[in-house]
């Protein structure tokens, strides 16, 4: 069972995603901000991170850089309400992005693809 860490400062999003992804058979843990996110990842060892881009105190794209620098191959899916973030080239360090919606079909598809991805690991 894959473990997913949801990082989002909106409680209803964390609740919705948690419920739906748990129903899909994933183990879900959540964080309500980017505070000590790398430490949280080290402790939880998730197989995938769903990361909100715009949180009150944190920029998800900066957090993405931190994650990618420390965890080269940890899948990260960016979540956002707007697609203007794509103008920032930092966003290409994400595996996928999804626009926030109450229909989680796309998010579930991207999670499946990200977890299926098979690339030999770095030396």
């Amino acid at each position: 069972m894959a473990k997913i860490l949801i990082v989002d400062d909106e409680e209803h999003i964390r609740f919705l995603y948690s419920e739906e992804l748990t129903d899909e058979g994933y183990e879900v843990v959540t964080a309500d901000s980017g505070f000590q996110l790398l430490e949280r990842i080290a402790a939880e060892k998730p197989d995938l991170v769903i990361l909100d881009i715009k949180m009150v105190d944190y920029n998800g794209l900066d957090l993405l850089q931190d994650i990618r620098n420390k965890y080269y191959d940890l899948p990260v899916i960016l979540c956002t309400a707007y697609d203007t973030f794509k103008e920032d080239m930092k966003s290409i360090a994400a595996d996928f992005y999804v626009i926030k919606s109450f229909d989680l079909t796309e998010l579930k598809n991207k999670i499946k693809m990200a977890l299926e991805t098979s690339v030999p690991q770095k030396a």
Partner: protein
Amino acid sequence: MVQDYLEENPSNINEAEMVVAIPSYREAKLIGYPTTQAALGLKRYFAERKCVLINCDNNSDDGTKEAFFAADTEGVPRIYLSTPAGIRGKGNNFHNLFHKVLELGAKAVVVVDADLKSITPQWIKHLGEPLFNEFGYVAPLYVRHKYDGTITNSIAYPLTRALYGRRVRQPIGGDFGFSGEMARVFLASPTWTEAVRNFGIDIWMTTIAMNNNVPICQAYMGRPKIHKPKDPGADLGPMFSQVVGTIFDLMTQTTGYWMRVKWSRPTSIYGFGLGEVEMPPPVKVSEDKLAANFREGFQQWQGLWAQILPEDLNKKIGEIGGLPPDQFDFPTQLWAKTLYEFAVAYKEQTVDRQQLLVSLIPLYFGKTLSYVRKTARMSVQQAEEFIENECMVFEETKPYLLERWGA
């Protein structure tokens, strides 16, 4: 190791930690600027390390060497290497460079093009620093005009990404960083072909880095790549055959690796925080030339295509060839399958390999024409998203390649 280069080393440099290399052929008018910028980068960001600038040249007769030595490098020493008279090829310049890097014992090597007009000292920092921080290979990441780098956009990037599973946006960008250890790997590789000794060298290095599971990052350069532009409908020459031939050769040599790859992963990005993104200057494309080249090729190569492509694909190519000019469209999935089929035919040598590569060029022109039309009203960023979607089609179509390859 056999030394097959001519050398001028006026400062008698015999060791260096960091090398910045500038490969060239007849770049006397332009090489001075990147040489000076590279020297500034070394002085500013690597002052505590022993550094050297190397011009790896093809024995240019236009004064390239003199221009290199005349440039102001603020005391950074220089070495000039050249292939013997009559020996050309960018890859041959790199071969000489790899020898020299090992001889000098360098830990990090940055390579920049000799015709760069937009290079800043920070490019040296961004391509070089990751090599002192666990990365073995650094590819450039810059904003390019949507019509600049069309071989990259329609072949090198989507194919490399789908095959090897690493998203390196500029696999043949021309500006790279690699470790001294990678120079040893490159030099020891048994896969040096004539194409690799020419313009195939860039995609060859990137692919070898991927296949060796070397940690790769992309360095954000801040400024767009501005160099001598090429109209994709006009200037192509042997570069196309050398780049695509190298991709197909490597597919044959690395089958066991890429068959295990499913979907793709991003890489680390290095070097943000450079302020506002500068947009690249426009690149003119002649749609008429692209259309004419496609039509001519359609007449010339239909017979060969019928030997390379299965009947259904060949029929679809025939259908797009018959479309009225204003309705011309080359669907991405058809393009992906076409490239996969050409790769299979290249491996199986069902037709002459050189003819196969040459016959692919008009199809590439057709695909480029289709891309130009679809992205005509798009911003650079929207065109980037369009290319990303095309890459997904290549990845989704990969099972077709596995089946056709004989998995």
